[in-house]
């Protein structure tokens, strides 16, 4: 059935689904799509206030004088792609029983929708980041590597999405389990602090944490610092493996979706 819908048609369909997903969030809201900009700005203000003023957090390696909130923001964008995607993945298929049971539909593209929507939001975030960098006088050419730096993270999120979406169909608890884990990851990943300020004994955990590697790489790219290509590359390999396994698992479970929904 999937082969009948051509590859191009599938991409078009995916594009439509993502568009619907993004638009749906703002449909009927007074400020409409302006929320795409307002939300990240509010979030940025909160983090800047709490960590910059209340906790007086210091960023040891901010050598070239980028303000704290800018450093934070450049990493947070990457983390948000991951957290947005993963929190919504368990319901990506579960919330569309009609697409599974009532229409002929390539179900494996459903888990791509939260990721796609998260990437759309990230794009606006990056625009804000660029504006902020320019405003703070920190704009440099290396920032064009930013999207490339995100690649391993996207692949990991993709693999996990397929996996979680499949399990979310069978196990209703998944949508409850995932958010606290995402919250935990926020504090365990070097988003609010650099990996360098972690005690020496925990350092390996951060070195091999693909999420951490990507976040650090993104930050380096945005702020014009040297990028750790080795950890990035290993994260990429992990991402490829994760997405491959995720898709395989999804396709394996797909046959029973209709029974479980």
């Amino acid at each position, binding site marked *: *059935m999937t082969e*009948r*819908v*051509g590859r191009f*048609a599938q991409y*078009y*369909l995916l594009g*439509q689904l993502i568009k*619907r997903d993004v638009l*749906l969030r703002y*449909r*009927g809201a007074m400020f409409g799509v302006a929320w795409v900009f307002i939300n990240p700005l509010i979030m940025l203000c909160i983090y800047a206030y709490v960590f910059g003023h209340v906790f007086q957090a210091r960023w040891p390696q901010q050598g070239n004088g980028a303000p704290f909130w800018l450093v934070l923001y450049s990493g947070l964008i990457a983390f948000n792609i991951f957290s947005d995607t993963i929190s919504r993945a368990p319901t990506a298929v579960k919330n569309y029983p*009609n*697409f*599974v*049971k*009532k*229409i*002929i*539909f390539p179900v494996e593209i459903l888990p791509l929708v939260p990721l796609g929507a998260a990437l759309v939001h990230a794009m606006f975030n990056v625009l804000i980041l660029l504006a902020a960098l320019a405003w703070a006088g920190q704009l440099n050419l290396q920032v064009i590597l930013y999207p490339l730096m995100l690649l391993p993270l996207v692949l990991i999120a993709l693999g996990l999405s397929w996996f979680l979406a499949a399990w979310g169909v*069978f*196990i*209703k608890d998944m949508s409850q389990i995932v958010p606290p884990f995402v919250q935990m990851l926020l504090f365990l990943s070097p988003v609010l602090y650099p990996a360098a300020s972690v005690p020496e004994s925990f350092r390996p955990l951060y070195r091999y944490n693909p999420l951490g590697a990507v976040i650090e790489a993104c930050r380096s790219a945005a702020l014009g610092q040297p990028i750790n290509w080795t950890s990035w590359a290993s994260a990429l390999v992990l991402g490829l493996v994760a997405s491959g396994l995720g898709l395989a698992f999804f396709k394996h479970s797909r*046959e*029973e979706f*209709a*029974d*479980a929904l």
Partner: protein
Amino acid sequence: MPSDDVAISARNLNKTYRLFSHPGDRIKQFFTLGIKQYHRQFTALKDISFDIKKGDTVGIIGRNGSGKSTLLQLICGILKPTSGTVRTEGRISALLELGAGFNLEFTGRENVYFQGALMGFTQADMDGLIDDIAAFADIGEFLDQPVRTYSSGMFVRLAFAAMIHADADILVIDEALSVGDEAFQRKCFDKLQDYLEGHEKILLFVSHNVRQVERICSHAIWLENGRIVQQGAAGETCAAYQTKIHQQVHGMHESTKPLPTIADSGEVEVIRIQLFADNGEESVDEIEIHAALRIVVDFRCHSNLIEPDILIGFHTIDSVFIATASTAILPKPPDFPQGEHRVQVRIADLTLLPGVYQIRLGFLDRHLRPMWAGHKLSAFRVTAPAGSNLVRFPPGLIDMPFEWTFSSGTQ
């Protein structure tokens, strides 16, 4: 090997579901890798084989839970068979539920475009179709309103319009046409017939409504408990199915007291409803067309009934009312003092066409307040005259005494 003009071919299809009594059991099953069984098996379809040729219209009939919808889902590729194969040729448009891909927050137009994307149409393709779809759905300015503001009728019209214009090779419809007003149903059937005519299209149609199947379909497949009971020409298969249903419906009512399924004020109690051939002594459940039929109702009233309206009528299994006898239109409606009574209504010439019919019965007081009302009561079958080789009567419910005249010229 199936020949070239076969567009859907199913061979030994089986579909078994795994039923888990607790969601956790599924996880246990997953981790034990099949060493231990945490589930029960439920077989939805057993050994189904059939071929459908291009240009066929096929109805799938059967009771609830007989596997009709599962079979459609297998044909569409939404479900995978546990064993066996199903091969289809051409693009399938499935209408297992009208507007299944619609999102209530979006406008009709947006949803139609999205439905198109589901079918593999691009934006440009849909630009060319939208006017036809809008004209067929005929919902005016609502096309640009969110679907949640639609009446259920408008929703159905738009969904059907979007589907029928997709120009698929195989059209699969599950009960979808039982909704919408009569005018629109008529329009849908006309459109369906246009669509089928001349093209090498296939229509697969599931319905509880045997009459609809008889009317639209050339072939029928009768499923029961996941097996094919009979398949072949629609007329014969539907007739066999109706006979079976009649036996079951009748068996259900045989020994039980008629129940007031619609209204019951406690003033009247119906004891039994019996049908007799004109001068027969034994009650019957089969009667030949054009014979005389007597319907006898025994009831008990707990107070004096002054000029009640007693209604006795017929309806089809799908609740189409055909005719009703009423005491209220008599010159002098009778009164019934407290106690047991028997009323009889006789039909000298039963013009109902062969098929299965049911009785409805109502007791209303003088002010038309229902005291006892029920439908789907006794069932009976009208049979073709013995020895008649009429396999199929012309479509309809009643054999009207038509008179033809033929002459030359227009004078």
